[in-house]
């Protein structure tokens, strides 16, 4: 067994060794991120069998919790950590095909992965804030690293909103610390019954806004379309596949594990529905395909938050499993969409729907990749998205929210409308042919194949998602495995 703490230490070390390596040879930095993520992946995989019921505790400084900072990894965190490394690895391979003079980009990328992995593995609330800051600040940099004005605009907006969000998050932590005197997540969770209701409520509102920015909840998500649109395509992938998924993890961990159920469930429930509807309607009118995908991402995040709040209303392990399936589908599907859209435009950054005419017919492989992403996102059969969508509907049915189900189906029709429009446009008339390298295509093929293979054979993913969901549900197990005994 290799200690998972190495994931954090090694990534940090490799990130800061990039400038040194750059001095040695200018060709070395691009190879560091794939190496780092691959090692991380290996470390995490060796740990799979050690994570049993409850959480695996990794102490630092030789002190037992709740004293020192420690990592607490249960199956839910492990799943997200592995997801982050897999997407990170694929993306870093993708970067190998690009000429990039600035080695600082690779540092930012690794720091971003570090922040995300840190958030999903830590067992300490303040520590999670630190990692959140690392994640956000590196994201601002990544978004703004595009070469044009749009990128800077998106990065700036993201930074402004993100900074407010994370400071409110910190405020929430402070409020909890004042009333419990501890920062350990498990310990706070254990002391939760003794906290006065008003404190619980106030702190959960602060957390709601802090995390709401990350998970793109309705009034807090105004930055998202600009950031997604402005960022380079790979960074948009990272935003939708890694960064926003980290937000979901944080939401689940804080509201479900620490609070033991969503406080202000109804508020989140209605906000999530609004997010979904507003985003899908906004996408309907969008002529810029990338911004359309951005809205669609926001909408999908709304769905995810919706399903979490449905879980809080009617707890059922199936509902949580659904949330994980949706997250996985979105991570792979939307990631694939952003990547292949970039190639379909020939990296010209011109995403107008009219200019994409015939691009899919001229580049059949890219057309296939994009179509796979779309079909999985809209939940067509034989793609993985079908199962996540069906289980979403089943969960909502089980919670007896039939009106919501009808509403969702109506909005899915809107979603299909704009996606079908793009697909039809891609295969209309003659387009320009683009040369693309072997590396990007094979990376995208991996994304697409995973969607198709697990669409046809979903058992293993179900099993994994179910285990992860079960471990997230076992709140008392989490607490007792960290603090020892009840």
């Amino acid at each position, binding site marked *: 067994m290799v200690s998972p703490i190495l994931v954090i230490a090694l990534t940090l070390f490799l990130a800061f060794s990039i400038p040194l390596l750059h001095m040695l040879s200018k060709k070395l930095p691009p190879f560091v991120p794939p190496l780092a993520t691959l090692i991380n992946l290996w470390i995490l995989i060796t740990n799979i069998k050690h994570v049993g019921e409850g959480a695996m505790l990794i102490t630092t400084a030789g002190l037992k919790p709740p004293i020192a900072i420690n990592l607490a990894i249960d199956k839910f965190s492990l799943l997200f950590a592995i997801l982050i490394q897999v997407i990170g690895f694929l993306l870093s391979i993708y970067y190998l095909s690009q000429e990039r003079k600035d080695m600082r980009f690779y540092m930012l990328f690794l720091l971003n992965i570090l922040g995300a992995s840190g958030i999903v593995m830590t067992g300490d609330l303040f520590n999670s804030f630190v990692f959140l800051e690392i994640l956000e600040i590196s994201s601002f940099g990544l978004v703004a690293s595009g070469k044009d004005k749009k990128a800077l605009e998106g990065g700036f*907006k993201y930074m*402004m*909103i993100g900074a*407010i*969000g994370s400071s*409110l998050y910190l405020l929430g932590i402070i409020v909890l610390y004042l009333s419990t005197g501890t920062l350990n997540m498990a310990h706070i969770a254990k002391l939760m019954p003794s906290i006065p209701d*008003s404190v619980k*409520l106030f702190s959960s*509102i602060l957390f*709601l*806004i802090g995390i709401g*920015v990350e998970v793109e909840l309705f*009034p*807090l998500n*105004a930055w998202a*379309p*600009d950031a997604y649109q402005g960022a380079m395509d790979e960074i948009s992938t990272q935003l939708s596949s890694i960064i926003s998924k980290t937000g979901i993890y944080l939401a689940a961990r804080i509201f479900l594990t620490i609070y033991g159920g969503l406080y*202000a469930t109804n*508020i989140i429930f209605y906000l999530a529905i609004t997010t979904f*509807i*507003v985003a899908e*309607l*906004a*996408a*309907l*009118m*969008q002529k810029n395909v990338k911004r359309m995908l951005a*809205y669609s991402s926001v909408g999908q995040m709304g769905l995810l938050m919706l399903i979490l709040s449905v879980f809080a209303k009617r707890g059922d392990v*199936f509902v949580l499993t659904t949330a994980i399936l949706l997250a996985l589908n979105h991570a792979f599907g939307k990631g694939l969409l952003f990547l292949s859209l970039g190639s379909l435009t020939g990296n010209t950054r011109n995403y107008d729907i009219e200019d994409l005419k015939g691009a899919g017919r001229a580049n059949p492989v890219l057309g296939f990749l994009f179509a796979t992403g779309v*079909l999985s996102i809209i939940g*067509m*059969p*034989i793609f993985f998205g*079908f199962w996540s969508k*069906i*289980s979403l*509907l*089943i969960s909502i*049915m089980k919670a*007896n929210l*039939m009106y919501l*189900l009808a509403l969702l*189906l*109506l909005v*899915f*029709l*809107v979603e*299909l*409308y704009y996606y*079908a*429009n793009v*697909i*039809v*446009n891609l*295969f209309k008339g003659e387009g320009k042919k683009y040369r693309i390298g072997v590396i990007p295509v094979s990376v995208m093929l991996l994304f697409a194949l995973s969607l198709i293979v697990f669409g046809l054979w*979903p*058992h293993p993913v*179900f*099993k994994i998602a*179910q285990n992860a969901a079960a471990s997230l549900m076992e709140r008392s197990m989490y607490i007792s495995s960290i603090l020892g005994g009840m």
Partner: protein
Amino acid sequence: MAMFLLLLIIGLTGLLAFILGPIKVLRNIISLIGAIGGLLYFVFKIRPGQAYALNIKIYNVHFGTGMSALSIFFGIILLGLFLIFLIASFHEDNDGAYYMFSFFSLLGALGVLFAKDLISFFFFFETMSLFSFLIVLKGNGETSHRSAFKYVMWSAFGAYAFLLGTFLKVNYTHSVMITDISYLGGNIKLWILILLLTPFMVKTALMPFHLWAPGAYTDSKDTYTVFLSGGLSKIGVFGYFIALFNVFSQIAVLYPWLLKVFAYIGAITASLAGIYAFMQDDAKKLLAYSSISQLGYVAVGFGVYSHFSVVAALFHALGHAVFESLLFLVVAGVYYRTKTHDLRKMGGLIKKMPLSFIGLLFGIIATSGIPPTIGFPSKWLLYEAIILKNDLFLVSLVFFASITAFLYSYKLIHSIFLGKLHKEHEHIKEAPFGYGFGIVVLLIPLFVLGTNPGIVVKPIDYIVRFYLKPDLAYNLTNMTTPLGHVNFPAIGITMTLLFTLSFIIYLIFGKSYRAAQEDNYTATEWIDKDFGLHYGGEFYGFMRKAFGKPLTWSFEKILNACLKVVSFLGEIARGFYMGDARVYLFYIILFFAIIVYIMGGKL
């Protein structure tokens, strides 16, 4: 297991066809073997009552694939038509992906027939819609993209309605299986029934859900239209049966008005689509509307809901599969030679393409329901069933629809095969083997079942007898209903004899002289030999004047108004995201204030 293996065979063949895409000969052979093998496997291995469950663990939903006799009935139609489509399609310039999509759409359709529970029903239904959408998208028409878009949107509309119905049913009965819901309390069962019926009304293009059909039928590749119209629309008929009998067996007791509405919708569809059909100048569009019109009869049959009206409906579904496919196939063959679907640009092809002419001739005879073809028994039964219901208005509507069938049939055959030959068509040959083969093969059931309907009525009766009180006596060639008795071969022979007799009388006494195809009367005006004088341009132009007003009424306008409302909402939603950073910060502060205000009382 057999059903699962069949689906596997079909799916793998499609995949192989895609992989072998560039090597044309090998690809064609493989897909032919797959299709024939599938058909043989189906005929010899699949029996009623078989069941197989593929366990997708997490839902505890079994992918039950059980069989009923009805599934076998429709399965043979589907696989047979697919084979005919496949052989003809080798003449077209298609790539491997095209064959993969078509095999997958077949797989979806067969899966629907096999499904025992509603979720797997939905799964296969969506598979079928998805891949037929992709095929329409690959079509050759200039508007094929628009058509494909409409097709997928309508299919999805139907599918989502079905899904809502499914979940409503599961929520109330706690079972995803296709089981009877008529014992449920309250009005929810009515909604479930209507929702479950929606996708099938879309699939059979019942008005007002027909808006996708003319486009999709016209713009899909010619040979695939044979399968799309003849084959895949049968899934809709299958669905009617499932919804009206298996899911809601007590409909005649509980909601007789719904059946009446259904019958009227069918009759109106049959008449209106018939009118639309003879207004068309595009051969495929004409046939598309004809197809919609003919499927309207099927809906009437289900709506009348007596034993032999349902038998007639199912028989007509089979008939539709035979003669509509035949017509589409002939038009495909003509297109292969002339490169046009425009009726105004064709004419006089009778001597150039005699086999196609014969195919079309008997095709339209069957469409009009004249003995001794397959169109006759079903229409005869259907009329009797409606007359027994004493619904005179319905009878007149259906009769009117039959008249329109005569009109568009005549337009079709006249514009393509009769009259003056166009100069550029002088060197045209008969359609190639693939098309001819299909025409000959389809002519066999056209006559055999037209004179011996008992072959098919027996299994259909076996299916329907289970649900409705039988009031039809029959053997191989005879049928007896409460209204009377009919002997099909006798009628066929009489009809043929009468026709021959009048033809002979016409030959002997008719005042006519043999005119060459180029010989035209032009009233003192001397015209060039290659001046087109074929009467195809304003065919039934006077009808257009007569029916002009109703033709401008369109369901599409209502739809567009809805779309406008949604677009307006979309603009509002988009406006939210148009600000700069200060505006977004303001949102957050406002949000914080509102939340604290709402929750304030509890703090």
